[in-house]
Protein backbone atom coordinates (compact mmCIF):
# COMPACT_ATOMS: atom_id res chain seq x y z
CA UNK A 1 0.00 0.00 0.00
CA UNK A 2 1.07 3.55 -0.69
CA UNK A 3 1.36 5.83 2.29
CA UNK A 4 2.03 9.54 2.54
CA UNK A 5 3.21 10.87 5.89
CA UNK A 6 2.76 14.61 6.41
CA UNK A 7 5.47 16.03 8.64
CA UNK A 8 6.36 19.45 9.92
CA UNK A 9 9.62 21.20 10.59
CA UNK A 10 9.15 23.12 13.84
CA UNK A 11 11.18 25.40 16.11
CA UNK A 12 12.86 23.43 18.88
CA UNK A 13 10.65 23.77 21.98
CA UNK A 14 13.74 23.62 24.17
CA UNK A 15 15.07 26.79 22.52
CA UNK A 16 13.41 30.17 22.87
CA UNK A 17 10.33 30.35 20.65
CA UNK A 18 8.81 33.62 19.54
CA UNK A 19 7.08 35.62 16.85
CA UNK A 20 8.05 37.89 13.98
CA UNK A 21 6.82 41.48 13.66
CA UNK A 22 3.92 40.27 11.46
CA UNK A 23 2.77 37.87 14.22
CA UNK A 24 3.91 34.76 12.37
CA UNK A 25 5.98 32.14 14.17
CA UNK A 26 9.69 32.99 14.08
CA UNK A 27 11.14 30.18 11.96
CA UNK A 28 14.42 31.91 11.01
CA UNK A 29 16.14 32.78 14.25
CA UNK A 30 15.71 29.43 15.99
CA UNK A 31 16.91 25.87 15.52
CA UNK A 32 14.37 23.59 13.95
CA UNK A 33 13.80 19.87 13.69
CA UNK A 34 11.30 17.22 12.64
CA UNK A 35 8.39 17.68 15.03
CA UNK A 36 8.84 14.99 17.67
CA UNK A 37 5.20 13.98 17.30
CA UNK A 38 5.74 13.30 13.59
CA UNK A 39 8.24 10.50 14.25
CA UNK A 40 5.33 8.28 15.32
CA UNK A 41 3.42 8.36 11.99
CA UNK A 42 6.71 7.83 10.15
CA UNK A 43 7.40 4.74 12.27
CA UNK A 44 3.84 3.47 11.80
CA UNK A 45 4.05 3.98 8.04
CA UNK A 46 7.33 2.07 7.89
CA UNK A 47 5.81 -0.86 9.78
CA UNK A 48 2.76 -0.96 7.50
CA UNK A 49 4.89 -0.65 4.37
CA UNK A 50 7.21 -3.41 5.52
CA UNK A 51 4.23 -5.71 6.05
CA UNK A 52 2.58 -4.92 2.71
CA UNK A 53 5.51 -4.13 0.43
CA UNK A 54 4.25 -0.59 0.16
CA UNK A 55 6.01 2.70 -0.31
CA UNK A 56 6.31 5.55 2.14
CA UNK A 57 6.43 9.11 0.85
CA UNK A 58 7.20 11.81 3.37
CA UNK A 59 5.66 15.19 2.57
CA UNK A 60 6.37 18.57 4.09
CA UNK A 61 5.83 22.21 3.21
CA UNK A 62 8.03 24.93 4.58
CA UNK A 63 11.18 26.95 4.07
CA UNK A 64 14.44 25.45 2.75
CA UNK A 65 15.48 24.25 6.18
CA UNK A 66 12.38 22.07 6.30
CA UNK A 67 14.28 19.63 4.06
CA UNK A 68 15.95 18.52 7.30
CA UNK A 69 12.64 17.06 8.48
CA UNK A 70 12.40 15.00 5.28
CA UNK A 71 16.00 13.90 5.62
CA UNK A 72 15.37 12.58 9.10
CA UNK A 73 12.33 10.56 7.93
CA UNK A 74 14.33 9.15 4.99
CA UNK A 75 17.08 8.13 7.42
CA UNK A 76 14.48 6.30 9.46
CA UNK A 77 13.52 4.39 6.31
CA UNK A 78 10.97 6.29 4.22
CA UNK A 79 11.37 5.71 0.47
CA UNK A 80 11.06 9.19 -0.97
CA UNK A 81 10.42 12.79 -0.06
CA UNK A 82 8.37 15.68 -1.36
CA UNK A 83 9.16 19.20 -0.21
CA UNK A 84 6.74 21.97 -1.18
CA UNK A 85 8.87 25.07 -0.96
CA UNK A 86 7.72 28.46 -2.17
CA UNK A 87 8.26 31.93 -0.76
CA UNK A 88 4.53 32.62 -1.07
CA UNK A 89 3.76 29.93 1.52
CA UNK A 90 5.23 31.82 4.49
CA UNK A 91 2.58 32.73 7.04
CA UNK A 92 0.01 30.25 5.74
CA UNK A 93 -2.73 29.24 8.16
CA UNK A 94 -4.18 25.76 8.62
CA UNK A 95 -6.70 26.29 5.80
CA UNK A 96 -3.99 27.16 3.27
CA UNK A 97 -1.72 24.42 4.62
CA UNK A 98 -4.43 21.83 4.03
CA UNK A 99 -4.92 23.13 0.48
CA UNK A 100 -1.24 22.81 -0.40
CA UNK A 101 -0.88 19.38 1.23
CA UNK A 102 -4.04 18.09 -0.49
CA UNK A 103 -2.79 19.17 -3.92
CA UNK A 104 0.62 17.65 -3.23
CA UNK A 105 -0.99 14.34 -2.19
CA UNK A 106 -3.07 14.36 -5.40
CA UNK A 107 0.11 14.91 -7.41
CA UNK A 108 1.87 12.02 -5.64
CA UNK A 109 -1.20 10.05 -6.69
CA UNK A 110 -2.65 6.59 -5.96
CA UNK A 111 -2.53 6.88 -2.19
CA UNK A 112 -4.19 4.44 0.22
CA UNK A 113 -3.38 6.13 3.49
CA UNK A 114 -2.28 9.55 4.72
CA UNK A 115 -0.71 9.56 8.18
CA UNK A 116 -0.05 12.56 10.43
CA UNK A 117 1.03 13.20 14.00
CA UNK A 118 -1.52 14.13 16.65
CA UNK A 119 -0.53 17.79 16.51
CA UNK A 120 2.39 19.96 15.58
CA UNK A 121 4.48 20.99 18.55
CA UNK A 122 4.22 24.66 17.56
CA UNK A 123 0.78 25.66 16.22
CA UNK A 124 -0.85 22.56 17.75
CA UNK A 125 -4.36 23.23 16.42
CA UNK A 126 -4.81 19.59 15.33
CA UNK A 127 -7.20 20.64 12.55
CA UNK A 128 -5.11 20.00 9.45
CA UNK A 129 -5.95 16.25 9.25
CA UNK A 130 -9.69 17.00 9.19
CA UNK A 131 -9.26 19.82 6.66
CA UNK A 132 -7.09 17.61 4.50
CA UNK A 133 -9.70 14.86 4.59
CA UNK A 134 -12.42 17.35 3.67
CA UNK A 135 -10.42 18.55 0.66
CA UNK A 136 -9.57 15.02 -0.46
CA UNK A 137 -13.16 13.88 0.08
CA UNK A 138 -12.10 11.00 2.34
CA UNK A 139 -12.78 10.09 5.99
CA UNK A 140 -10.40 10.96 8.78
CA UNK A 141 -9.88 9.07 12.01
CA UNK A 142 -7.70 10.63 14.62
CA UNK A 143 -5.66 10.07 17.77
CA UNK A 144 -4.98 6.42 17.01
CA UNK A 145 -3.25 4.49 19.78
CA UNK A 146 -3.37 1.32 17.67
CA UNK A 147 -3.73 0.92 13.93
CA UNK A 148 -4.31 -1.99 11.59
CA UNK A 149 -5.28 -2.23 7.93
CA UNK A 150 -7.28 -5.04 6.41
CA UNK A 151 -9.05 -5.33 3.08
CA UNK A 152 -9.48 -1.68 2.33
CA UNK A 153 -10.42 -0.74 5.89
CA UNK A 154 -8.35 0.97 8.54
CA UNK A 155 -9.19 0.17 12.13
CA UNK A 156 -7.89 2.21 15.06
CA UNK A 157 -8.22 2.35 18.82
CA UNK A 158 -8.80 5.74 20.42
CA UNK A 159 -8.63 6.21 24.17
CA UNK A 160 -10.07 8.92 26.33
CA UNK A 161 -10.41 9.09 30.09
CA UNK A 162 -13.97 7.76 29.87
CA UNK A 163 -13.85 5.16 27.13
CA UNK A 164 -11.80 3.20 24.67
CA UNK A 165 -13.25 3.15 21.15
CA UNK A 166 -12.57 1.03 18.11
CA UNK A 167 -13.15 3.03 14.94
CA UNK A 168 -13.22 1.81 11.36
CA UNK A 169 -12.93 3.80 8.18
CA UNK A 170 -12.84 3.00 4.51
CA UNK A 171 -9.57 3.59 2.64
CA UNK A 172 -8.28 5.91 1.42
CA UNK A 173 -8.34 7.81 4.69
CA UNK A 174 -6.42 10.35 6.72
CA UNK A 175 -5.28 9.00 10.10
CA UNK A 176 -3.50 10.83 12.92
CA UNK A 177 -1.57 8.78 15.47
CA UNK A 178 -0.56 9.47 19.07
CA UNK A 179 2.79 9.08 20.78
CA UNK A 180 1.78 5.78 22.42
CA UNK A 181 1.26 3.90 19.15
CA UNK A 182 4.87 2.81 18.77
CA UNK A 183 8.51 3.45 19.66
CA UNK A 184 10.07 5.37 16.73
CA UNK A 185 13.34 3.84 15.54
CA UNK A 186 16.59 5.77 15.52
CA UNK A 187 18.22 6.02 12.11
CA UNK A 188 20.92 3.39 11.75
CA UNK A 189 24.27 4.16 10.13
CA UNK A 190 23.07 2.19 7.11
CA UNK A 191 19.86 4.20 7.08
CA UNK A 192 21.77 7.47 7.17
CA UNK A 193 23.96 6.41 4.25
CA UNK A 194 21.01 5.07 2.24
CA UNK A 195 19.02 8.27 2.76
CA UNK A 196 21.59 10.22 0.74
CA UNK A 197 20.56 8.37 -2.41
CA UNK A 198 16.80 8.55 -1.91
CA UNK A 199 14.80 10.83 -4.22
CA UNK A 200 13.48 14.12 -2.85
CA UNK A 201 11.36 16.26 -5.14
CA UNK A 202 10.99 19.96 -4.51
CA UNK A 203 7.73 21.40 -5.78
CA UNK A 204 6.58 24.99 -6.05
CA UNK A 205 2.98 26.17 -5.85
CA UNK A 206 2.97 26.41 -9.66
CA UNK A 207 3.83 22.70 -9.83
CA UNK A 208 0.69 22.03 -7.80
CA UNK A 209 -1.55 24.43 -9.69
CA UNK A 210 -2.12 26.45 -6.53
CA UNK A 211 -2.35 30.21 -7.02
CA UNK A 212 -0.05 32.17 -4.73
CA UNK A 213 -2.99 34.39 -3.74
CA UNK A 214 -4.62 31.37 -2.02
CA UNK A 215 -1.83 30.93 0.51
CA UNK A 216 0.43 32.92 2.79
CA UNK A 217 -0.28 35.51 5.42
CA UNK A 218 -2.49 37.75 3.24
CA UNK A 219 -4.78 34.86 2.32
CA UNK A 220 -5.31 33.76 5.91
CA UNK A 221 -8.99 33.46 6.84
CA UNK A 222 -8.24 34.76 10.32
CA UNK A 223 -6.15 37.77 11.30
CA UNK A 224 -3.81 37.76 14.25
CA UNK A 225 -4.20 41.19 15.80
CA UNK A 226 -1.77 40.92 18.67
CA UNK A 227 0.65 38.52 20.29
CA UNK A 228 1.65 39.12 23.85
CA UNK A 229 4.16 37.29 25.98
CA UNK A 230 2.30 36.11 29.01
CA UNK A 231 3.71 37.84 32.06
CA UNK A 232 5.78 35.32 34.00
CA UNK A 233 3.83 33.93 36.94
CA UNK A 234 4.89 35.52 40.15
CA UNK A 235 6.25 32.90 42.46
CA UNK A 236 4.21 32.62 45.62
CA UNK A 237 5.26 31.30 48.98
CA UNK A 238 7.33 28.12 49.04
CA UNK A 239 7.73 26.45 52.43
CA UNK A 240 9.96 23.57 53.43
CA UNK A 241 8.19 20.69 55.11
CA UNK A 242 9.38 20.25 58.67
CA UNK A 243 6.45 18.11 59.71
CA UNK A 244 3.63 20.59 59.05
CA UNK A 245 3.88 20.92 55.25
CA UNK A 246 0.56 19.20 54.63
CA UNK A 247 -1.19 21.39 57.20
CA UNK A 248 0.27 24.47 55.56
CA UNK A 249 -0.93 23.25 52.17
CA UNK A 250 -4.46 22.65 53.49
CA UNK A 251 -4.39 26.09 55.13
CA UNK A 252 -3.44 27.72 51.80
CA UNK A 253 -6.18 25.83 49.92
CA UNK A 254 -8.75 26.83 52.54
CA UNK A 255 -7.64 30.49 52.31
CA UNK A 256 -8.35 30.34 48.55
CA UNK A 257 -11.73 28.70 49.19
CA UNK A 258 -10.85 25.36 47.63
CA UNK A 259 -11.87 23.51 50.79
Amino acid at each position, binding site marked *: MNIVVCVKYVPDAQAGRGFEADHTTDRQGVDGLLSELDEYPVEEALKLAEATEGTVTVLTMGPEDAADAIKRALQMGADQGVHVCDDAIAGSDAVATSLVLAEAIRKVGDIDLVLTGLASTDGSMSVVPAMLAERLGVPQ*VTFASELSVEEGTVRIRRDSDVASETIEARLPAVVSVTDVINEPRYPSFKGIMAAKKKPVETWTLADLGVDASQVGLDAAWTTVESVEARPPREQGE*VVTDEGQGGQALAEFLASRKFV
Partner: protein
Amino acid sequence: MSEVLVLVDHVEGAVRKSTAELLTAARRLGEPSAVLVAAPEHADAARESLGRYGAEKVYRVEAPEVREHLVAPLVDVFANLVERTGAAAVLLPSDPDGNEVAGRLAVRTGSGVITDAVDVQPAEDGAGVRTVQSVFAGSYTVTSLVNRGTPVVTLKPNSVPVEEAGGEAAVVEEAVDVSIPEESLAARIVQRSEKQQTGRPGLTEAAIVVSGGRGTGGDFGPVEQLADALGAAVGASRAAVDAGWYPHAYQVGQTGASVSPQLYVAAGISGAIQHRAGMQTSKTIVAVNKDAEAPIFELVDFGVVGDLFTVLPQAAEEIQRRKG
Protein backbone atom coordinates in the same frame (compact mmCIF):
# COMPACT_ATOMS: atom_id res chain seq x y z
CA MET B 1 -29.65 39.58 16.13
CA SER B 2 -28.46 36.51 14.31
CA GLU B 3 -28.40 32.97 15.53
CA VAL B 4 -25.24 31.46 16.99
CA LEU B 5 -25.09 27.69 16.53
CA VAL B 6 -23.80 25.69 19.51
CA LEU B 7 -23.09 21.96 19.46
CA VAL B 8 -24.48 20.25 22.57
CA ASP B 9 -22.30 17.77 24.41
CA HIS B 10 -24.42 15.51 26.59
CA VAL B 11 -24.57 12.06 28.11
CA GLU B 12 -28.04 10.58 27.59
CA GLY B 13 -29.66 14.01 27.85
CA ALA B 14 -27.54 15.28 30.77
CA VAL B 15 -25.93 18.42 29.32
CA ARG B 16 -22.25 18.82 30.16
CA LYS B 17 -20.83 21.91 31.79
CA SER B 18 -18.78 22.73 28.70
CA THR B 19 -22.04 23.20 26.79
CA ALA B 20 -23.32 25.65 29.42
CA GLU B 21 -20.05 27.55 28.91
CA LEU B 22 -20.55 27.62 25.13
CA LEU B 23 -24.13 28.88 25.51
CA THR B 24 -22.97 31.58 27.95
CA ALA B 25 -20.36 32.71 25.40
CA ALA B 26 -22.86 32.48 22.51
CA ARG B 27 -25.16 34.99 24.23
CA ARG B 28 -22.46 37.65 23.73
CA LEU B 29 -22.48 37.03 19.99
CA GLY B 30 -26.18 36.65 19.20
CA GLU B 31 -29.12 34.38 19.88
CA PRO B 32 -27.93 30.94 20.93
CA SER B 33 -29.36 27.99 19.01
CA ALA B 34 -28.42 24.60 20.41
CA VAL B 35 -27.79 21.77 17.99
CA LEU B 36 -28.75 18.61 19.82
CA VAL B 37 -27.91 15.19 18.47
CA ALA B 38 -29.85 12.83 20.68
CA ALA B 39 -32.18 9.88 20.73
CA PRO B 40 -35.82 11.08 21.13
CA GLU B 41 -36.06 9.80 24.72
CA HIS B 42 -33.15 12.02 25.81
CA ALA B 43 -34.19 15.23 24.10
CA ASP B 44 -36.64 16.51 26.75
CA ALA B 45 -34.16 16.44 29.62
CA ALA B 46 -31.56 18.21 27.53
CA ARG B 47 -33.95 20.93 26.30
CA GLU B 48 -34.69 22.14 29.81
CA SER B 49 -31.09 22.78 30.79
CA LEU B 50 -30.27 24.25 27.38
CA GLY B 51 -32.99 26.84 27.94
CA ARG B 52 -31.62 27.64 31.38
CA TYR B 53 -28.27 28.64 29.85
CA GLY B 54 -29.81 30.77 27.15
CA ALA B 55 -30.68 28.58 24.17
CA GLU B 56 -33.58 30.26 22.39
CA LYS B 57 -33.91 27.49 19.87
CA VAL B 58 -33.03 23.81 19.81
CA TYR B 59 -32.33 22.06 16.53
CA ARG B 60 -32.98 18.41 17.25
CA VAL B 61 -31.10 15.96 15.07
CA GLU B 62 -32.51 12.47 15.40
CA ALA B 63 -31.06 10.72 12.36
CA PRO B 64 -29.29 7.68 13.82
CA GLU B 65 -26.47 7.87 11.26
CA VAL B 66 -25.34 11.15 12.80
CA ARG B 67 -24.97 9.46 16.16
CA GLU B 68 -23.36 6.33 14.77
CA HIS B 69 -20.80 7.89 12.49
CA LEU B 70 -17.97 10.23 13.21
CA VAL B 71 -17.68 13.91 12.38
CA ALA B 72 -18.62 13.99 8.68
CA PRO B 73 -22.44 13.69 9.10
CA LEU B 74 -22.32 16.39 11.75
CA VAL B 75 -20.49 18.63 9.30
CA ASP B 76 -23.35 18.03 6.83
CA VAL B 77 -25.84 19.09 9.52
CA PHE B 78 -23.95 22.26 10.45
CA ALA B 79 -23.25 23.24 6.84
CA ASN B 80 -26.98 22.95 6.19
CA LEU B 81 -27.90 25.01 9.26
CA VAL B 82 -25.28 27.68 8.55
CA GLU B 83 -26.67 28.18 5.08
CA ARG B 84 -30.31 28.09 6.14
CA THR B 85 -30.04 30.39 9.18
CA GLY B 86 -27.29 32.77 8.09
CA ALA B 87 -25.78 32.16 11.52
CA ALA B 88 -23.40 34.76 12.96
CA ALA B 89 -21.00 32.13 14.30
CA VAL B 90 -20.60 28.47 15.24
CA LEU B 91 -19.29 27.47 18.68
CA LEU B 92 -18.05 23.93 19.33
CA PRO B 93 -16.36 22.20 22.25
CA SER B 94 -12.59 22.03 22.00
CA ASP B 95 -12.20 18.25 21.92
CA PRO B 96 -11.07 15.98 19.08
CA ASP B 97 -14.51 15.72 17.47
CA GLY B 98 -15.29 19.43 17.96
CA ASN B 99 -12.00 20.50 16.43
CA GLU B 100 -12.47 18.17 13.47
CA VAL B 101 -16.01 19.34 12.79
CA ALA B 102 -14.63 22.89 12.98
CA GLY B 103 -11.86 22.20 10.49
CA ARG B 104 -14.10 20.51 7.93
CA LEU B 105 -16.92 23.03 8.34
CA ALA B 106 -14.53 25.95 7.85
CA VAL B 107 -13.17 24.53 4.61
CA ARG B 108 -16.63 23.63 3.34
CA THR B 109 -18.21 27.00 4.12
CA GLY B 110 -15.18 29.15 3.36
CA SER B 111 -15.03 30.43 6.91
CA GLY B 112 -12.31 31.46 9.32
CA VAL B 113 -11.67 28.97 12.13
CA ILE B 114 -9.97 29.19 15.51
CA THR B 115 -9.56 26.14 17.75
CA ASP B 116 -8.80 25.88 21.46
CA ALA B 117 -9.81 29.47 22.17
CA VAL B 118 -9.90 30.61 25.80
CA ASP B 119 -12.14 33.60 25.09
CA VAL B 120 -14.51 34.78 22.38
CA GLN B 121 -16.14 38.20 22.05
CA PRO B 122 -18.07 40.03 19.32
CA ALA B 123 -15.95 42.24 17.06
CA GLU B 124 -16.91 45.87 16.46
CA ASP B 125 -20.08 46.44 14.41
CA GLY B 126 -20.90 42.76 14.63
CA ALA B 127 -18.28 42.06 11.96
CA GLY B 128 -17.15 38.64 13.06
CA VAL B 129 -15.69 37.57 16.37
CA ARG B 130 -12.49 38.16 18.29
CA THR B 131 -10.78 35.20 19.96
CA VAL B 132 -7.97 34.70 22.44
CA GLN B 133 -5.72 31.63 22.39
CA SER B 134 -2.88 30.60 24.63
CA VAL B 135 0.08 29.22 22.66
CA PHE B 136 3.66 27.93 23.03
CA ALA B 137 3.08 26.16 26.33
CA GLY B 138 0.97 29.03 27.59
CA SER B 139 3.81 31.50 27.22
CA TYR B 140 2.04 33.72 24.66
CA THR B 141 -1.48 35.05 24.30
CA VAL B 142 -2.73 35.48 20.72
CA THR B 143 -5.71 37.69 19.85
CA SER B 144 -7.29 37.05 16.45
CA LEU B 145 -10.10 38.52 14.39
CA VAL B 146 -12.27 36.01 12.56
CA ASN B 147 -14.48 37.79 10.05
CA ARG B 148 -14.51 35.63 6.99
CA GLY B 149 -17.63 33.59 6.28
CA THR B 150 -19.35 32.23 9.38
CA PRO B 151 -16.66 32.24 12.10
CA VAL B 152 -16.13 28.77 13.59
CA VAL B 153 -14.60 28.66 17.07
CA THR B 154 -13.86 25.81 19.46
CA LEU B 155 -13.67 26.88 23.08
CA LYS B 156 -11.64 25.17 25.79
CA PRO B 157 -13.47 23.95 28.89
CA ASN B 158 -13.27 26.19 31.97
CA SER B 159 -12.64 29.29 29.84
CA VAL B 160 -15.98 31.02 30.40
CA PRO B 161 -17.74 31.30 33.77
CA VAL B 162 -21.19 29.76 33.38
CA GLU B 163 -24.11 32.14 33.85
CA GLU B 164 -27.77 31.23 33.73
CA ALA B 165 -29.75 33.33 31.28
CA GLY B 166 -32.59 34.18 33.65
CA GLY B 167 -35.95 34.79 32.03
CA GLU B 168 -38.53 32.19 31.28
CA ALA B 169 -38.72 32.38 27.49
CA ALA B 170 -39.95 29.16 25.95
CA VAL B 171 -37.41 27.27 23.91
CA VAL B 172 -38.42 26.80 20.30
CA GLU B 173 -37.72 23.31 19.06
CA GLU B 174 -37.23 22.29 15.48
CA ALA B 175 -36.50 18.85 14.09
CA VAL B 176 -33.71 18.92 11.55
CA ASP B 177 -33.93 16.53 8.68
CA VAL B 178 -30.71 16.63 6.71
CA SER B 179 -29.98 13.97 4.15
CA ILE B 180 -26.54 12.55 4.84
CA PRO B 181 -24.66 11.55 1.69
CA GLU B 182 -23.19 8.07 1.55
CA GLU B 183 -19.60 9.34 1.54
CA SER B 184 -20.13 10.88 4.98
CA LEU B 185 -20.71 7.42 6.43
CA ALA B 186 -17.20 6.14 5.81
CA ALA B 187 -16.00 6.26 9.44
CA ARG B 188 -17.83 4.78 12.40
CA ILE B 189 -17.35 3.56 15.93
CA VAL B 190 -17.62 -0.23 15.89
CA GLN B 191 -16.94 -0.86 19.54
CA ARG B 192 -16.88 1.24 22.67
CA SER B 193 -15.86 0.07 26.10
CA GLU B 194 -16.42 2.44 28.98
CA LYS B 195 -13.51 2.77 31.36
CA GLN B 196 -14.11 1.70 34.90
CA GLN B 197 -15.88 4.57 36.62
CA THR B 198 -13.57 6.29 39.08
CA GLY B 199 -16.29 8.59 40.44
CA ARG B 200 -13.96 11.52 39.74
CA PRO B 201 -14.72 14.39 37.38
CA GLY B 202 -13.37 14.35 33.82
CA LEU B 203 -9.81 15.59 33.48
CA THR B 204 -10.36 18.47 31.06
CA GLU B 205 -13.52 19.84 32.67
CA ALA B 206 -12.60 19.42 36.34
CA ALA B 207 -12.35 22.56 38.48
CA ILE B 208 -9.46 20.98 40.39
CA VAL B 209 -6.77 18.59 39.09
CA VAL B 210 -4.20 16.77 41.23
CA SER B 211 -1.37 15.25 39.18
CA GLY B 212 1.45 12.89 40.03
CA GLY B 213 4.82 12.44 38.36
CA ARG B 214 8.12 10.67 38.67
CA GLY B 215 8.24 11.49 42.39
CA THR B 216 5.37 9.08 43.08
CA GLY B 217 7.67 6.19 42.27
CA GLY B 218 4.60 4.50 40.81
CA ASP B 219 2.37 4.82 43.89
CA PHE B 220 -0.51 7.17 43.05
CA GLY B 221 -2.24 6.44 46.38
CA PRO B 222 -1.43 9.81 48.00
CA VAL B 223 -2.31 11.67 44.76
CA GLU B 224 -5.71 9.97 44.57
CA GLN B 225 -6.29 10.52 48.29
CA LEU B 226 -5.77 14.29 47.98
CA ALA B 227 -7.79 14.39 44.75
CA ASP B 228 -10.74 12.71 46.47
CA ALA B 229 -10.53 15.04 49.47
CA LEU B 230 -10.78 17.99 47.04
CA GLY B 231 -13.30 16.39 44.67
CA ALA B 232 -10.65 16.65 41.96
CA ALA B 233 -9.66 14.79 38.80
CA VAL B 234 -6.35 12.90 38.76
CA GLY B 235 -3.69 13.65 36.15
CA ALA B 236 -0.23 12.30 35.44
CA SER B 237 2.99 13.59 33.92
CA ARG B 238 4.48 12.02 30.82
CA ALA B 239 7.23 10.44 32.91
CA ALA B 240 4.65 8.65 35.05
CA VAL B 241 2.66 7.52 32.00
CA ASP B 242 5.75 6.36 30.10
CA ALA B 243 6.75 4.34 33.15
CA GLY B 244 3.38 2.61 32.98
CA TRP B 245 2.24 3.93 36.37
CA TYR B 246 -0.94 5.63 35.15
CA PRO B 247 -2.99 5.30 31.93
CA HIS B 248 -2.16 7.55 28.99
CA ALA B 249 -5.69 8.99 28.99
CA TYR B 250 -4.77 10.90 32.16
CA GLN B 251 -1.59 12.46 30.81
CA VAL B 252 -1.35 16.22 31.19
CA GLY B 253 1.02 18.07 28.88
CA GLN B 254 1.87 18.79 25.31
CA THR B 255 1.19 15.25 24.13
CA GLY B 256 -1.70 14.64 26.47
CA ALA B 257 -4.57 16.69 27.82
CA SER B 258 -4.32 20.42 28.14
CA VAL B 259 -6.11 21.54 31.29
CA SER B 260 -6.86 24.92 32.77
CA PRO B 261 -8.64 24.31 36.07
CA GLN B 262 -9.20 26.71 38.95
CA LEU B 263 -6.58 24.78 40.94
CA TYR B 264 -3.75 22.53 39.73
CA VAL B 265 -1.71 20.52 42.22
CA ALA B 266 1.55 19.03 40.86
CA ALA B 267 2.98 16.32 43.10
CA GLY B 268 6.41 14.90 42.37
CA ILE B 269 6.48 16.64 38.97
CA SER B 270 9.61 18.60 38.03
CA GLY B 271 7.83 20.91 35.57
CA ALA B 272 9.47 20.24 32.21
CA ILE B 273 8.27 22.37 29.27
CA GLN B 274 6.19 19.45 27.93
CA HIS B 275 4.24 19.37 31.18
CA ARG B 276 3.90 23.13 31.48
CA ALA B 277 2.32 23.21 28.04
CA GLY B 278 -0.66 21.35 29.42
CA MET B 279 -1.24 23.17 32.71
CA GLN B 280 0.39 26.60 32.69
CA THR B 281 -2.89 28.46 32.21
CA SER B 282 -4.40 27.02 35.41
CA LYS B 283 -5.68 29.80 37.67
CA THR B 284 -3.93 28.67 40.87
CA ILE B 285 -0.92 26.34 40.87
CA VAL B 286 0.42 24.40 43.83
CA ALA B 287 3.41 22.03 43.88
CA VAL B 288 4.86 19.49 46.26
CA ASN B 289 8.34 18.27 45.39
CA LYS B 290 11.39 16.99 47.25
CA ASP B 291 13.70 19.02 45.03
CA ALA B 292 13.71 22.70 45.98
CA GLU B 293 15.31 23.48 42.58
CA ALA B 294 12.50 21.86 40.53
CA PRO B 295 11.37 24.34 37.83
CA ILE B 296 7.72 23.75 38.74
CA PHE B 297 8.26 26.01 41.78
CA GLU B 298 8.76 28.99 39.40
CA LEU B 299 5.06 28.75 38.55
CA VAL B 300 3.47 28.18 41.91
CA ASP B 301 1.19 30.27 44.04
CA PHE B 302 2.13 27.99 46.90
CA GLY B 303 4.74 25.27 47.15
CA VAL B 304 5.93 22.72 49.66
CA VAL B 305 9.47 21.36 49.46
CA GLY B 306 8.98 17.94 50.96
CA ASP B 307 8.07 14.31 50.51
CA LEU B 308 4.71 13.90 48.83
CA PHE B 309 4.15 10.67 50.75
CA THR B 310 3.86 12.63 54.00
CA VAL B 311 2.67 16.04 52.73
CA LEU B 312 -0.27 14.88 50.59
CA PRO B 313 -1.88 12.54 53.17
CA GLN B 314 -1.48 15.18 55.89
CA ALA B 315 -3.12 17.79 53.66
CA ALA B 316 -5.92 15.37 52.71
CA GLU B 317 -6.64 14.58 56.37
CA GLU B 318 -6.66 18.25 57.31
CA ILE B 319 -9.05 19.01 54.43
CA GLN B 320 -11.37 16.18 55.53
CA ARG B 321 -11.25 17.50 59.10
CA ARG B 322 -12.18 21.02 57.98
CA LYS B 323 -15.01 19.68 55.87
CA GLY B 324 -16.22 17.95 59.02
